């Protein structure tokens, strides 16, 4: 069934529709929030809030025919705005912890190196200005188009393109400084 059908059913209060939309979008939204916040627990808490917001605000959603993933963009808009609020609230207290610390098992060398590398990338990403971080994440991780990103962030397409370019440039500088790129 298409997104729009599930959305129509959710507007009528269907639990099945909620579950279907959750299964489709929650993992991506969680990754997006984790990417922006850098903390798995906070990302989960915010995902919970976003899912409740989805139920509350579903009546206000209207599909945009010019956009391929209209509902996805709407959901990302909700979660991005919520994440921005959260980041502003805790400004100055930003965590740089990206690795999952719950694992108590000793890691194999290769896995450990991968985790370390991921931790480094996560830290570097957090050093990007928020706008650049969001644009890079939405384009690279979530594979959204310029138009969709522009609808999510409320900026015009040219600003998105410029931010994306600056994000890549800054990321390259940071990786070079860390010796993680030739």
């Amino acid at each position, binding site marked *: 069934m298409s997104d729009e059908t599930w959305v129509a059913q959710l507007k009528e209060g269907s639990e099945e529709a909620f579950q279907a939309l*959750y299964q489709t979008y929650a993992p991506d939204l969680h*990754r997006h929030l984790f990417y922006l916040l850098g903390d798995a627990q906070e990302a989960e808490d915010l995902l919970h809030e976003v899912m*409740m917001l989805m139920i509350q605000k579903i009546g206000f959603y209207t599909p945009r025919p010019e956009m391929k993933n209209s509902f996805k963009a709407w959901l990302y808009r909700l979660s991005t705005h919520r994440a921005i609020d959260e980041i502003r609230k805790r400004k100055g207290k930003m965590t740089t912890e990206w690795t999952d610390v719950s694992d108590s098992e000793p890691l194999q060398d290769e896995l450990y190196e991968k985790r370390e590398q991921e931790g480094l990338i996560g830290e570097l*990403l957090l050093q990007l200005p928020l706008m650049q971080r969001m644009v890079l994440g939405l384009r690279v991780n979530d594979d959204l188009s310029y138009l969709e990103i522009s609808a999510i962030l409320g900026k015009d397409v040219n600003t998105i393109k410029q931010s994306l370019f600056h994000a*890549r440039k800054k*990321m390259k500088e940071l990786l070079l400084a860390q010796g993680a790129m030739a």
Partner: protein
Amino acid sequence: MKHPPLEILQDYFENALVLSQEKRVKEHLLVCDQCSKMMADFAVIETKVLNRSAPAISAQAQQRIFADAKKMLAQRGQQKLAQIERQEKMKEFFHEWQEKLSFDWRVPALQFASLSLVLAVVVAVETNQTEETTYQPISTDVQVSTYQDVTPQEGE
């Protein structure tokens, strides 16, 4: 050597160029080390960002989301039902009054109209009768009495 604008290079990387532009950039990249390096760097960054795995949503968080969503949907369902009930009651109320009003007004209006008609007829008839009885005797009496008094008699 002239280089394409940075925006064009980025669009090339994003596969967002039309074929003719794409061909020109491709040709340029074959001879320009600087731009080729930029494209390679973009690819490295993309791979590094993409390869970073995100933790899965915990089963506990998922359970909490489903439970709260269920509650919220049930609440919304109840609110919706209450709203529908209120709307139905209002509709019934208006319908009842509409019926009452349409019945109450039509009958007295008809009664009033017929009564007015009857009254109008009665008044008209009465007026005609009054006119006849009032003017006839006065005019004849006066004429008769006046002429009788004033007219000189023959032979006077």
